[in-house]
């Protein structure tokens, strides 16, 4: 499992393609969504957490396809499946890889977000980190599983968001609500129920993905 993770990370470190794509897409979404709100109004401040999450989710859905598509393009998928490891471990490795790449992109994206929305930098980062990490974990869990599913369909780029977004609805709602509450100055205990929901979502979809990957990957 760690070998797969290490291999993916090394590819990523050398090419940086998923990272760059994720980052630019996230940035672009931030900018485009800023157009949607009057830059001077209070509405924009209220919309800020939503904008961040939409950027994360949007970029994530598009970026997540890469990790498995890369295996297929290089004809490595067969080899990976023939390797004497449990399919569940492949899933966990791919999920961890996606999580790390997305988290790395967040390290750049969140400060940019803070910059655009004129927020206090360290305060925002300190407050949002746990929410974003929990959200990214769940999103990587569900995204990796359904990236594998959509790999098996025609029109796979369209299929992935269609599958993931409705299922990730609790994650998106919880992420936005928790971020909004934290940015409004509430402390962590005020959003404990959202964090619990995020953690439950992570746990559920890690288990579902771990169990289901066997079925997804069979020929």
């Amino acid at each position: 499992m760690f070998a797969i993770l290490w291999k993916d990370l090394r590819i990523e470190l050398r090419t940086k393609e998923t990272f760059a794509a994720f980052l630019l897409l996230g940035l672009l979404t931030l900018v485009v969504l800023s157009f949607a709100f009057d830059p001077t109004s209070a509405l924009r401040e209220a919309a800020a957490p939503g904008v961040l999450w939409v950027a994360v989710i949007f970029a994530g859905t598009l970026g997540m396809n890469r990790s498995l598509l890369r295996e297929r393009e290089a004809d490595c998928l067969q080899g990976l499946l023939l390797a004497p490891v449990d399919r569940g471990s492949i899933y966990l490795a791919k999920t961890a890889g996606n999580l790390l790449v997305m988290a790395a992109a967040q390290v750049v994206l969140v400060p940019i977000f803070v910059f655009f929305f004129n927020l206090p930098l360290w305060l925002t980062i300190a407050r949002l980190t746990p929410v974003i990490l929990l959200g990214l974990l769940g999103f990587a869990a569900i995204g990796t599983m359904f990236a594998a599913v959509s790999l098996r369909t025609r029109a796979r780029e369209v299929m992935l968001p269609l599958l993931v977004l409705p299922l990730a609805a609790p994650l998106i709602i919880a992420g936005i609500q928790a971020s909004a509450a934290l940015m409004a100055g509430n402390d962590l205990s005020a959003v404990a129920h959202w964090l619990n929901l995020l953690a439950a979502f992570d746990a559920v979809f890690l288990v579902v993905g771990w169990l289901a990957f066997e079925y997804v990957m069979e020929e």
Partner: protein
Amino acid sequence: MTASNLTDRLLPPATITALLGALYLIFIGVPADAVQGPVQRIFYVHMAMWLATFSAFGLVGLASLLYLWRRSPRWDNLGRASAELGLLFCSLGLATGCIWARPIWGTWWTWDPRLTLTLILWMIYAAYLLLRALATEPTQGATLAAILGVSGVVDLYLINRAVYWWRGIHPAVIVNREGGSGLNDPLMRVTLLVSMLAFFLLFLWLLRLRLRTARLQDAVDDLRAQLAGV
């Protein structure tokens, strides 16, 4: 086989009788609601849709699980047929809900938790059907769709909690769906039961028809494969 034949023979007349009975009760038999007036009569149809919808989506989850376990095409056919019918009844439920909400709540749509939940459900099962249509290979599509079917049911509780908390912070437009009127008249309760029964029977009937079509389709595919082999 005889039991199945008997069901096939009895289900259509029973459904039609119940539907006619429900129509009579809704439009003529039952007294109009004291507060909402005749508009409230749509409630009997609206509520009946949800019984069919949730039975159908429940069946999808069950059939998906059984398919992953047993790998029998029977479960796959059941899953697909229920998903299609569930989506049909869900759409009708949403539509009747909107028509009812317009005069009573003054808006076609609110982000009430139940409405949100239903809309998300609708999207999950629409994706389920699309996934089957776009799968590169039918058996693989069945497996993938089954995974989505199970995930959907697993997710249901989380979606439910999320939308309730989400809207719970703000005052909901309306909390009590029956507008505080309740079903005080016993005839109202009878009408509701008859209507729910009628649409549930309709669901079962359509499900059987759909399953038979699926079986015939499978048989045709088999024959075609045999002929191509010769």
